[in-house]
Structure formats: C-alpha cells, structure tokens
C-alpha cells in the first residue's frame, strides 16, 4: 500500500474488496458518510449497487420507447401512403387499406426504430468512448475485470479529506487502499 503524501494532487482514493457483498456494503457506508463523488467497479453486474450508490435511473428506456413508436408510425404510414394513396392497386378485391397486411412491416420498423435509438442513445448517454481514465493508473485495478471489486472516492468530493477519507476506507475492511494518480 502506497504511502499517501498529504499535498500531492491525486484523482481520488481506491479501496479494493474481495467480494461483491463487501463492495455493496462499502458503497452504502460511503453514501451514509456523506460522500457523493464515488464510483464502483466490478467484474459482474450487481443489482444492489444501483441502490447503494443511489444512481439515477437511465433515460434510455424512454428513448427506446419513443424510437419504437416513431418507427412503427413511419412503417404503417409508408404502407398506407404507398398502398392506398400513391399506388392504389386492386389485389383480389381486398380493400386498399388492408391493415393486417401492414402489420408485419409496422412490426419490423418498430423494432428497427427501437434498436437504432437504443444503439445511438446508449453511446450518447454513457460517455464512451473515453480513451483515458485515471483508475487504470493503479496496477491492482487490472483485476477489476477478473475477481476484485473496487470503490473510488474522488478528490472532487466536498467531503474528501486525504487523511480522513483514507482512514474511513480502511475501516471498511478492504484488501487495500490505493491512491489514484490523476
């Protein structure tokens, strides 16, 4: 564990845990202690972390719903315009507006609209691509994609205090506490 110099500028402090439960409990404790600028890193999705970190719900589902509805309307509109207005053809005596025939296309364009807005919206909202992030300066962080769980409290947090925060993190029973170079 690195010695923490009192004046150096760093990105934040990182605590390393061996179990997902340890990480979730630490995140809860950190929220309770008043820390707000914190993030957790885990090799597997952990549902409880969303609540422990009090993360805002993503707006992506609403975007996907809107994309799906728009796609569906566009598909049905295209069918209606081409079959009933632009190129009216009598097919086996059926009405020009034979809605059952329009449903497959409407379904497909609904899925297309939803999928496209999910793809574009995801990239727009998640902040990727991000070529540099300070957490990778910690050598131990390589295990974040394998078998270790990390909690980072950023220096930008108003309650961040070099010594106090380090003591606080050590009190959460981590395997180690590392400082994160900017």
């Amino acid at each position, binding site marked *: 564990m690195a010695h923490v110099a009192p004046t150096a500028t760093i990105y934040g402090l990182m605590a390393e845990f061996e179990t*997902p439960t340890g990480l*979730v409990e630490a995140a809860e404790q950190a929220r309770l202690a008043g820390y707000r600028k914190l993030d957790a890193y885990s090799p597997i999705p952990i*549902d409880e972390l969303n609540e422990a970190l009090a993360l805002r719900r993503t707006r992506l589902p609403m975007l996907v719903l809107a994309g799906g509805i728009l796609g569906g309307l566009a598909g049905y509109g295209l069918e209606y315009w081409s079959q009933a207005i632009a190129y009216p053809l009598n097919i086996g005596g059926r009405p020009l507006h034979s809605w*059952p*025939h329009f449903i*497959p296309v409407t379904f497909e364009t609904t899925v297309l609209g939803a999928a496209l807005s999910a793809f574009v919206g995801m990239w727009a909202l998640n902040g990727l691509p991000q070529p540099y992030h300070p957490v990778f300066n910690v050598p131990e962080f390589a295990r974040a994609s394998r078998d270790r769980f990390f909690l980072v409290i950023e220096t930008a947090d108003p309650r961040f205090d070099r010594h106090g925060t380090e003591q606080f993190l050590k009190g959460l029973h981590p395997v180690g506490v590392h400082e994160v170079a900017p």
Partner: protein
Amino acid sequence: MADVTTYAAPADLDRLRTRALYAGVAGLVVCGIGLVVDRDHFFRSWLTAYLLFLGIALGSMAFVMINHLSGGSWGVFRRVFEASSRTLPLLAILFLPVVLGMGTLYSWTHEDHVQADEVLRHKAPYLNVGFFLIRALAYFAGWILIAWTLTRLSKRQDEGDMSVNLTLQYVSGAGIVFYAFAATFAAIDWIMSINPHWYSTLFGFIFIGGQGLSALAFTIVISAWLVRREPMAALLRPSHFHDLGKLSLAFVMLWAYFNFSQYMLVFAANIVEEIPYFIARISHGWQFLALFLVIFQFAVPFLLLLSRDLKRTPYRLVMVAVWLLVIRYIDLFMLVAPEFDASGANLHLLTGEHESGFYVHWLDLAAPLAVGGLWFWMFLTQLAQRPLLAVGDPYLREALQSGGGH
C-alpha cells in the same frame, strides 16, 4: 411447520388445500347438476376449463425441462413448476368427461355424419374414435412418464447424487421434443377437430404458447404467495420476479405473434376451408370478445409488463398474473364456444347453415371451479411434499446470490 433449513412449505398451506378441495367438490356437484339438466353445455364447458389447467401443468413441465437445459436464476421457482407437472395423473382422470362427451363435442364421431361428408370421409383414418383414444392414451403416458422421471431424478439430486445432472439434461432434451409434438397433436385432436373441416398449421404453436403463458402466470401467483411467508421470504429477490415478469412479457408477445400470424395468413389466402373459423369469431357478437382479447390479453398486459418496477414488485406483478390466468380461460372459451350455439348444440352436427351468437352459460363458471379446485388441491399436495428449493441444484447457490446469473 415452516422450517427455514429444510425449506418446508408454509404452515397455512394446509388450510388453503382444504379450501381448494371444498371448492372443487362444490364445483363438481354443480357440474353434476349441469350434466343432468344441460348435458351439451356440460361437456363443452368441462373441455374449456380442463384445457386451462392442463395448460398450466404441461407448460410447467416444459419450463422444468427448459430450466434443466438452459440454467438460469429463475430455477429458484423449479419446485413450483415441478409440483404443477406432477398433477398430470389427476388430469388424466379429469379427461374422462371429455371421452364420455365425444359424441357431443366432435361431429366426426357420428358415422352417418362422416359418410355424408366427403372431407370427413377422407379424414376418417385419422379422425375416428379408436385412434383418438389411442393417441390420447399415448400423450398422457408420455407426459406422465416424463414428469415422473424428472421428479425422481430431481429427488436424487436433492440427496446429493451429482451423477444425475447430465441425465436430467438428456431426459429434458428428449422430453421437450415429445412434449412439443404431443401437444401439437393434442391441440388438433381436442380443439381443432371440433370444427373438422378447418385446419391451421400454427394451431399447435398457439396451444403451446398459451400453455407457457398460463404456467408462468400461475407460478408468479404461487411465488408471490410464498414470498410473503417463511422460508421463501428472505430468499426470493426482486430480480427473481423480474425474470418471471420478463418471460411473461415474452409469452404475451408470442401469443399475439402466433394469433396474428394465423389471422393474417387466413386473411391473405382467403380460401373457403379456412375462413369460416374466423368469420364465426368476428360476427354475431363474438367480434367484441375478439377485440376484448386483443386489448386485454395483448395490449394492456404488454404495456404493463414493460415497466421494470412492476416486474420487480411481487404484489403488483401478481395482479397482472391473476388477470392473465383469467384471460387465458376466456381465450380458450373463444377457441371452443363459437363452434356451439347458445342451446349447447354442436353447429357441425346440425344440418344446413347455422351460426352461433355470443353466449355465456353458468356451467362456464362451475366447470373451472370444479376442475380448478381439484387441480389446485392436487398441486398444493404435491408442493408440500418436497423442499421449496431444489437443494441439490448445482446452480442454486449462484441463483440465490445477489447479482446471480440469469
């Protein structure tokens, strides 16, 4: 006694079981009166109600097999599915009224009727009483054998015998294939042949998809009851209900997909053998029931089940599930009832042109009470016999963990 370590069923299960038996017997008495005073309606109502509970049992058996093959944290519900599948012997007995009512239900059982109809003469090698009974016997023998084998192996797994894990997968793989074929033929025999001229290649899929939806809805109802009691209170998480909710959403969409595909193909082809089935269901009052089904078996449950919060909140999800069970019965009613008229007479046995106007009979309430009460009594009996969790399941520990695999 509710025991946390052995995952025994909650203590108040017995009271519920007794009530189910009373309800079933009361329903049977009313059905008995119906059999005497209104014979034709009795057989039609019994068949409809029977198909709902058969669907829960068979759909549940299919989910047990899928879970053995796919894994997934929704395996924590496997004991509920297994208990449903072990009701099949009772369902074989409850099928007897359908056999006794064949003359009323199926016009092709009447020799003179078949001889007068060229299409039925051609279908006679398949649609005849002897072969129908042999097939029914084969379906039940196969289904019961599969359910029994899976239960026996799963018991050995509980006792710590890990060698059965692979066998369970083999049995499930073969069992799924048998189930799908047998259920398809059963749908043709028991429902489609009521209108013996009509045919639809999607009908078996509609039947199977409906069974999946019924089984999921029923399992949600039972699990929401279990999660309010020990020992499951601390074990079943929102994420587990989320999984059942997501599967239900998929099956609601599947129902709409199959039914719409069948409708559109018939609409597009517009041929005389296929359209009478739909004309009967979009006229004389039945069109309102058709619209009701589209809105309340697809549109409303679909929109509700989109909500993540609803799927993760058992007491809200259970309301959708109860509704799905009700609408499943109405959907089966729609498959059967329009082929009969309000007097109970089979339209295909009447000479000349006849059409059915919308009707509901009091036996349509008594029959589900009788079949459902007895069936639910059997289900609870089976549920109480085994630990509520498949304790020998190698994936159970992972499924119970937070963030366990799906």
